[in-house]
């Protein structure tokens, strides 16, 4: 959890920007997708309905053409003298019948040509139950059955000339068909035969089937509500008073579509009444199916998702690249304040970040250069000061030493005077002539011995000096005048109460550092005299050189850094221990 929060905080900027972007991209695409689907569906349904109402007109027109052909064919039958005459006369012998059949068939064939293109069949039934059938494949007529069927009663009862009936019974051999029938009447209203035009349901369907498609259904409904034909075969023969009421409701109005709910589904409903056949032509459009067929919602959604996905991906990559580099930059800068000022920033990431890093690094470099110059100047100044000091041998020391030598000569201590002069010469030589800042321990040791010899010559040998030098250290380098000031200090201040004692000088290589210890068993110092491990010296004193105990520590640190320097431990009446820590140099 903490890790998660950590990640969140580290990517704070990225997550914020990314979230805003993702949410807005998704919101925009959802709105656009939804709107485009909705608009195109509406537009499509509008145009579809308009187109369909035109199609309805066309279908109606086809039905009208068909009924017209039936009307004109039936007129021709009625006005055909041969048929009229043949049907009225009784034909007893086979010869007569042969002639009767032959001419009836011949006359009918000519008239039949009018309705034949619609796959309709034409049948004439005589009062003697003779059947003249033009296309027995379409309707195999049993004369006796037909003559006694209620179809005939309906024809006789009907006021209208041509009666359209839907039949699917024994008389049609179970085939659903529309039968247009007409009683052939003389002027005296005497019926001399019956004329039938039949159209099987599959043939009737051909009138409109090519206009239908999945979800776009056409039905023919009788004024009794019976569905006599449909491209959805399972509906044929069903009754739907609901549809009929809708159809009747629309009848007479301008053809406009409306939305209804039948068969448990939403439909766009169009209807037209075909007066010639006395049926309603109904067009049911299943909005969902039709719109789904044409407007591929899933495709649109897929495209939207793909675009959103790509946009998010691209945004992710770009944002990531930008924010990660900025975050890294920020981290680097904050780290820098804590630890390393001299480490330049990584110039990576986007353009902006790289510019910032570059400017920052430039500034850092400048700053460092400046600081370096400043430090160098200070160092130089300090060095110059120290050098000046170390090259300067206190004239009092020379004066005093020379005075001591004069006494020795007077006291005819030739040996001692000569030794002291040698030591003095070597001391002066090393101090003045050697301009190197560092010298080997061996040289330093020579200097120390010379100095100690001079002092012992002057003040007597009550203070002994022991040297304990590790042989492997003899050739190592140390700065000049590092040990001497402590020996001088010990000589002149450690033995004011105690008159005798010793000073031990230990030089060894310890833990890769050069350790010099100057230990005396003199008076020691009280805490007041120690200040931050250096000795407080106030008075202007006659020192060997300008370098005092005080600046040794400072000098070492200036030369080698904070890890090195001088530590002083002292206990009153027991002695003082000075520890000088130096790097190994050779």
């Amino acid at each position, binding site marked *: 959890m903490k890790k998660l929060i950590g990640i969140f905080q580290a990517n704070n900027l990225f997550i914020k920007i990314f979230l805003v972007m993702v949410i807005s991209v998704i919101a925009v695409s959802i709105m656009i997708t939804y709107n485009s689907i909705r608009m195109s569906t509406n537009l499509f349904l509008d145009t579809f309905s308009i187109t369909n109402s035109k199609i309805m007109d066309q279908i109606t027109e086809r039905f009208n053409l068909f009924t017209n052909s039936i009307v004109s064919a039936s007129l021709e039958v009625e006005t055909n003298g041969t048929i009229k005459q043949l049907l009225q006369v009784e034909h007893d012998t086979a010869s007569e019948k042969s002639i009767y*059949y032959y001419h009836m068939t011949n006359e009918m064939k000519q008239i039949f040509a009018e309705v034949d293109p619609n796959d309709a069949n034409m049948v004439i039934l005589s009062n003697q139950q003779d*059947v003249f059938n033009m296309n027995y494949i379409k309707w195999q007529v049993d004369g006796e059955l037909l003559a006694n069927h209620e179809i005939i009663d309906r024809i006789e009862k009907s006021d209208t000339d041509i009666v359209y009936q839907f039949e699917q019974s024994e008389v049609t051999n179970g085939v659903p068909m529309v039968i247009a029938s007409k009683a052939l009447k003389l002027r005296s209203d005497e019926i001399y035969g019956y004329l039938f035009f039949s159209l099987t349901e599959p043939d009737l369907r051909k009138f409109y089937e090519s206009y239908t498609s999945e979800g776009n259904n056409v039905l023919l409904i009788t004024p009794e509500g019976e569905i006599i034909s449909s491209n959805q075969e399972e509906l044929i023969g069903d009754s739907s008073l609901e549809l009929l009421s809708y159809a009747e409701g629309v009848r007479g109005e301008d053809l406009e579509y409306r939305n209804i709910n039948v068969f448990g589904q939403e439909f766009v409903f169009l209807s037209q009444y075909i007066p010639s056949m006395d049926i309603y032509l109904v067009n049911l459009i299943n909005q969902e199916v039709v719109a789904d067929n044409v407007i591929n919602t899933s495709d649109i959604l897929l495209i939207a998702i793909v675009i959103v996905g790509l946009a998010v991906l691209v945004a992710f990559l770009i944002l990531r690249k930008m924010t990660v580099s900025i975050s890294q930059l920020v981290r680097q800068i904050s780290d820098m304040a804590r630890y390393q000022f001299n480490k330049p920033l990584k110039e990576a990431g986007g353009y902006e970040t790289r510019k910032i890093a570059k400017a920052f690094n430039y500034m850092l470099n400048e700053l460092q250069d400046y600081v370096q110059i400043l430090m160098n100047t200070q160092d130089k100044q300090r060095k110059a000061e120290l050098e000046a000091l170390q090259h300067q041998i206190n004239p009092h020391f020379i004066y005093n030493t020379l005075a001591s030598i004069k006494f020795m000569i007077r006291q005819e201590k030739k040996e001692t005077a000569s030794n002291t002069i040698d030591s003095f010469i070597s001391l002066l030589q090393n101090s003045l002539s050697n301009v190197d800042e560092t010298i080997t321990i061996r040289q330093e040791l020579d200097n120390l011995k010379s100095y100690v010899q001079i002092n012992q010559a002057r003040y007597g040998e009550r203070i002994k000096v022991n040297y304990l030098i590790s042989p492997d250290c003899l050739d190592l380098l140390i700065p000049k005048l590092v040990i001497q000031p402590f020996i001088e200090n010990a000589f002149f201040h450690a033995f004011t109460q105690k008159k005798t004692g010793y000073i031990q000088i230990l030089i060894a290589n310890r833990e890769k550092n050069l350790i010099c210890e100057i230990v005396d068993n003199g008076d020691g110092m009280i805490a007041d005299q120690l200040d931050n491990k250096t000795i407080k010296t106030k008075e202007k004193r006659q020192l060997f050189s300008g370098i005092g105990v005080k600046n040794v520590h400072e000098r070492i640190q200036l030369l080698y850094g904070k890890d090195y320097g001088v530590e002083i431990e002292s206990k009153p009446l027991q002695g003082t221990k000075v520890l000088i820590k130096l790097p190994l140099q050779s």
Partner: protein
Amino acid sequence: MRETFTKKFWLLMIALLTTVVLAACSGGDDDSSEGGESDEGESTSGDEGAEITAWAWDPNFNIGALELALEHYDNEDFNMEIIENAQDDIVQKLNTGLSSGTMQGMPNIVLIEDQRAQSFLQSYPDAFYPIGDYFNPDDFAEYKLAPTSLDGKQYGLPFDTGVTGLFYRTDYLEEAGYTHEDLVDITWTKYIEIAKDVKEKTGHAMLSLDPNDLGILRVMMQTTGTWYTDEEGTIQIEGNEPLKMALENYKALMDSGVVKLNSDWSQYLEAFNSGDVATVPAGNWIAASIEAEESQSGLWKVAPTPRLDMEGAANASNQGGSSWYVLNIDGKEAAAEFLGGTFGSNVDFYQDLVTEIGAIGTYKPASEGDAYQFENEFFNNQQVVYEFSQWMEEIPQVDYGMNTYGIEDILSAEIQQYLDGKSIEDVLADTQTQAENQFK
């Protein structure tokens, strides 16, 4: 370096985005156009080449044979829709379709009667697809090759023989006092006598006739080997003695009241299926329709066709044998392969055809099979197929020419006048004149 990389990266991103957007747009277009196509596809699926349609008549016989052939055809990709039409309807639709030249709505396979075939082949030679390469014409009875080919090209795949017989109701004939022997090798004159007896004693009509179909005249005429036209195609109605005798017999049948008239094929079938008529003189293919009325099993037998009472007349004739033709439209290869693979070469299929449909093919390699000895229970265990194949060999050969049905149209009108009292000489002379005017 780094900057150029970034620039490249951006260019790449822009290019990618553009591609995606364009792809999305064009994808959308594709969808809508596909949708449109599929809609159209649904409405015009009938015109696709894959679906083969076949037109034939007689569900008991020709269509039954086609369905059997489809069962025997081992090709899953092959789809055939068989459409039943009346023969007259097929002839009329073919004439309309072929003469318009559009071939719109025409079938791939169509059955044509041999006697009509030449009029189609000669009138519309390009409309038919020569299928001689899909089977070996030499495997078929020779008399079927002449009507089904033109100019040396084989257009039709010969199907059934039209050999005729006299189907009769044994019960009615027995009631009238006749046995099978009384019906064997008789003349039409004798037939009329028997008919009168049957009518008198049983009250049943002897046969059913359609005044618009003069098939019975052709059956009578061919027993003597004559036709409306001679080998050169010259119309020979006037002075055609067999025709004259046939007409006289026809009138005698009509006048004697033994005929039950019908006005269409279904009524014709109804006449014997209902038991109204005692005999059916027709091509062997009618057996399938007779057998369709299973309740009459064992009541029927077949006798040889009556002959005309003339020198050289045989008791064998031909009626309505037909052959399969492939129209020269899309799908013709598939249709021809189907015919070649079934009717053209499959012996097993022909055995089944004999036993299941009762159809006697003209494929010679199949004529020796056991099925030809098959004793048909429906026909009192008579070896119907075997007998037909015997009579087949006796059929006097004639050249049908191309005007058979044209002449018959004229003749059928004249016959009504003949029945009405016009003299036979005038009838023949008038028919001759009209036919010459029409076909010369």
